[in-house]
């Protein structure tokens, strides 16, 4: 979608909303909404996703601006960590019983 109002099937674009629930935490995806521009998207997001103090900060991004990994290539794309259990602490068992390790 090039700009708001440009597509007659959907005059307002879709936005993805990310909410930080409290200082020190990451912004997490809360949902999406419809709004004509970024400023209105932030305001709508406040009304829609933080009616009960769920957030101290909001990010919005146009859904069409998100670049995603190819959903059809799941297996191949995420294959590399498989078989590499040595990247996890649980792989190392000989230190069992040793304190502070």
């Amino acid at each position, binding site marked *: 979608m090039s700009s708001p109002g440009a597509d007659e099937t959907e005059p307002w674009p*879709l936005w993805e909303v990310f909410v930080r629930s409290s200082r020190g935490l990451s912004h997490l995806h809360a949902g*999406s909404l419809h709004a004509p521009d970024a400023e209105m998207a932030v305001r709508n997001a406040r009304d829609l996703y933080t*009616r009960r103090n769920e957030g101290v900060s909001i990010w919005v991004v146009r859904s069409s601006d*998100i670049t995603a990994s190819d959903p059809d290539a799941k297996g191949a794309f995420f294959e590399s960590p498989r078989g590499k259990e040595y990247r996890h602490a649980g792989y190392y068992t000989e230190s069992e019983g040793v304190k502070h390790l």
Partner: protein
Amino acid sequence: MAPAATPTQRKDVDPVEDPAGRARFDELITADQRVEPTDWMPDAYRKTLVRQVSQHAHSEIIGMQPEGNWITRAPSLKRKAILMAKVQDEAGHGLYLYSAAQTLGVTRDRMTEDLISGKAKYSSIFNYPTPTWADMGSIGWLVDGAAICNQVPLCRASYGPYARAMVRICKEESFHQRQGFEILLHLSRGTKEQHEMAQESVNRWYAPALMMFGPPDADSPNSAQSMAWNIKRFSNDDLRQRFVDMIVPQAEVLGLTLPDPDLKWNEERGHYDYGELDWNEFSEVLKGRGPANAIRLERRRQAHEGGAWVREAAAAYAERRRAMAEKASAEKVQAA
């Protein structure tokens, strides 16, 4: 027409049959995992969800009207603030659900069109009028109560965006039911007239609330498929029974009776038996011949058409700002 696809929405609304995609879909359903917008899905699954999620959204939006009706006449400032917060929540529920439906490749405008043209359905419960303040209590206690029974299992629905919207909604619903219960409790313990008002209201809402779970299992042809797809988790009759078992003891706390002479504890079943419901009335109301169908739709149409200039102005403003920003950055490049 399908909206421009984004990574959060489906792009192929009529997917070609894809054996690998179907195998993957079946695998996800069998493993009770979630299906996401960009996954391949059978067209019937997508259509069922579009219908269910948009009807659900419409119900939340139309559902604002019977209660909105009482905001200006709430008996105290506290009750008014509570009622406004509840009605605002329902607007929010509608918007979460419209967004979830959009991920399936249907536009918001299309859904709105279908609602105000009378093509789309919504929950028949909102076509009953709210003549007394006690109805705010009955709606919260019985209507939101039945909605919660229906919605809690939907938090595990197989379609990810729908399930996530339901989680958010369910978190907010419990306040709705409790505030309704409290309204009835205060009336029931109030003057004789107040008590009678509460009882009269519960008498009107009991049967329609039970019918919210939909027709009996034997007459609910689409249920089996929805259950096979893990969209629906319990049958209409199972959910209705669960609800009846919940509200009988609650009515006792309220000091109110439920208008059903057949309502009694069945030791053998471990459930309350309840009387036959008037399914003829249900289908009449669903077909648009309920007491308030015409008013609800007309009101929704007026609101939508009356708000057209706001949507147009907001879009024009956004476009103008975008154009100005573009021009400014072009001039900057030229100056440099």
